């Protein structure tokens, strides 16, 4: 088992991502390279479905490291994020000791609060040494957790250590590669952002999105891919409540490929609009004449480019 080397330049980082089928732009490659080089957490913010979580997965795959994911939710606390004691086993141990007539409390405490009774949760796992190099620690949708948890994360992110009262401080020999993602359902505190390298993951431009579709949707026809991307790009310029992300584009391209479409037509668009838009107001606004108009614009542009 050996540790795969980290990329040594921005270009190498870009190649690394592209090689794993993640079509990244240079700004993302830059910030990722810096975060790996400096050992600082990467803080990715952006709309849903632009490929934030995917970055961590690709990193784990290409660097051949363990991926440890902590999905945040309201009410997430130390017991479910860091560690938990196996209470049932502890209670049995205590009763057994009592039945055997052991009354040395200190010995018992040391026994009961020791490694075998400890259940490790993601944060603790991420701080453990690994033969393949420090793991990729994905803290997903941090905005869903409450502020108290965020404050706790500060210690973990800045010192790479957690303290368990009965055992002591557990420090990572090598800091994990931390990727924090948020959907902005809440503003994350400045103190936490300050410790990270920040990157706003934006929707891709037409060229990059086309590469992503070709990369990710096997068997997609070229004309369909171009039209799909052209249409979605225009859709994002509309005043929508929820713009379609890259994930929606990929879903749509796959759906149309499943339907054996060679190109877009207004009827199919209105039938499958629910794959792209997730709000009734948005669908109502785009359905019918507006979607036809957008399609015509997209086609005109494609014709001009050829």
């Amino acid at each position, binding site marked *: 088992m050996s540790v795969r080397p980290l990329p040594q330049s921005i270009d190498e980082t870009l190649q690394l991502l592209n090689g794993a089928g993640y079509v990244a732009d240079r700004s993302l490659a830059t910030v990722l390279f810096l975060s790996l080089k400096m050992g600082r957490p990467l803080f990715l913010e952006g709309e849903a479905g632009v490929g934030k979580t995917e970055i961590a997965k690709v990193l784990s795959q290409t660097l051949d490291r363990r991926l440890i994911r902590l999905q945040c939710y*309201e009410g997430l606390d130390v017991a479910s994020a860091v560690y938990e004691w196996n*209470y049932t086993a502890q209670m049995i141990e205590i009763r057994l000791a009592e039945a055997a007539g052991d009354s040395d409390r200190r010995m018992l405490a040391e026994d*009961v609060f020791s490694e075998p009774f400890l259940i490790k949760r993601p944060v603790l796992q991420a701080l453990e040494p690994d033969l393949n190099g420090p793991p990729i620690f994905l803290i997903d949708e941090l905005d869903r957790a*409450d502020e108290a948890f965020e404050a706790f994360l500060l210690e973990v992110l800045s010192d790479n250590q957690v303290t368990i009262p009965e055992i002591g401080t557990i420090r990572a020999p090598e800091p994990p590669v931390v990727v924090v993602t948020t959907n902005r*359902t809440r503003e994350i505190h400045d103190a936490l952002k300050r410790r990270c390298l920040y990157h706003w993951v934006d929707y891709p431009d037409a060229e990059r999105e086309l590469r992503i579709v070709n990369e990710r949707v096997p068997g997609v026809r070229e004309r369909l891919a171009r039209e799909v991307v052209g249409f979605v790009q225009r859709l994002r310029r509309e005043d929508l409540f929820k713009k379609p992300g890259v994930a929606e584009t990929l879903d749509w391209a796959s759906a149309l490929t499943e339907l054996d479409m060679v190109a877009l037509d207004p009827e199919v668009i209105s039938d499958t609009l629910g794959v792209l838009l997730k709000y009734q107001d948005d669908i109502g606004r785009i359905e019918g004449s507006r979607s036809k108009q957008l399609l015509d614009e997209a086609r005109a542009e494609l014709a001009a480019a050829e």
Partner: protein
Amino acid sequence: MTETGGKIADNIVYFARALRRAGLPVGPAAVVDAIRAVEVAGISSRDDFYWTLHAVFVNKRADRPVFHEAFELFWRERGLVEKMLELLSPVAPPRPAETEKPKPGQQRVEEAMQALKERREEEVFPEIEIDARMTVSEKEILRRKDFAQMSAEEIASAMRALASLQFPDDQIVTRRLVAATRGKVDPRRTVRATMRSAGDLILPQARKRKVQEPPLVALADISGSMSEYSRVMLHFLHALSSRRKVHSFLFGTRLSNVTRQLRYKDPDEALAGCSDAVVDWSGGTRIADALHVFNRDWSRRVLGQGATVLLITDGLEREEGADLGAEAARLGRSCRRLIWLNPLLRFEQFEAKARGIRAILPHVDDFRPVHSLEAIEDLVKALSTPAKRPRPAVSRAA
């Protein structure tokens, strides 16, 4: 102490008194410290003198601008520092000329100085409270008086009353568990408690859901028709912001986020920050556009965690065409509770006739006046009662 020292000491005493009137917590001990500090520091320049007093009298960031203004007025205006320096050093430094626009805190300090001057002329020495105590009946009148009809002095008392308002107790249950005396069994604490008695006693420890105040989101109209209320509203939001999580947005023709500005401790500084951030004070209103921008850019970012929205506007929409009803409906659907505060409600014969008002009304949970202290007290009470959900689906104002 030499005679010079005596004069300086006297002046420091007066200066401290001025600071106290401007609202800084300066006690007699601080005055003694300041006099001693000035003696120890051995003043040789104005800056040294400034920072020496600053070190003693200022112990909160928010007090810095007030101290600065007070110092400028008290020492520089009357050339006192120069006089002192003349007394203390052979060469007096030249006095820099300066003209600047009024800064936050200046108003308060100037008033304090004015009062001090008058008092010094009378040579009255007993301490007077900052707050001129009002009689009960005066308070009652003030509580009911419309903000728009108040004098500057009354507004000032109203602001003070706002700052000391009882704040709402509108807690919601979160999913986080905390230790409690009753509730479900908390295994972690139970094991620890058991260990303390080496397993002789198993004492079940409990935990329960934590309660928390939900964030407030205020959308305040600062257009021309609301101008008499804007300042008071901002003060109210400032007082709220110091106690809980409040996101504040102001809108006229555009929407601006002033959350950070309102977190400054000093109310004058906070309001000055808001004026800098907002470009369209007292202009027209485009409520629908403002709500649209809020829904599109901000609602997902600030309406999580069960936020309560305070929409502060008179609902007089000047722009036709934009779909105010749809935007209000979206806003109502995306928050836990939508409360509309409308100063127009003070009129007994108020009827929802204006189109804008009729468009917003069906989508709000609560519709209240907000033109006087009493109305704001009522609002606080209303916040403390649970929200009335679900909303009636039918339009109320036909």
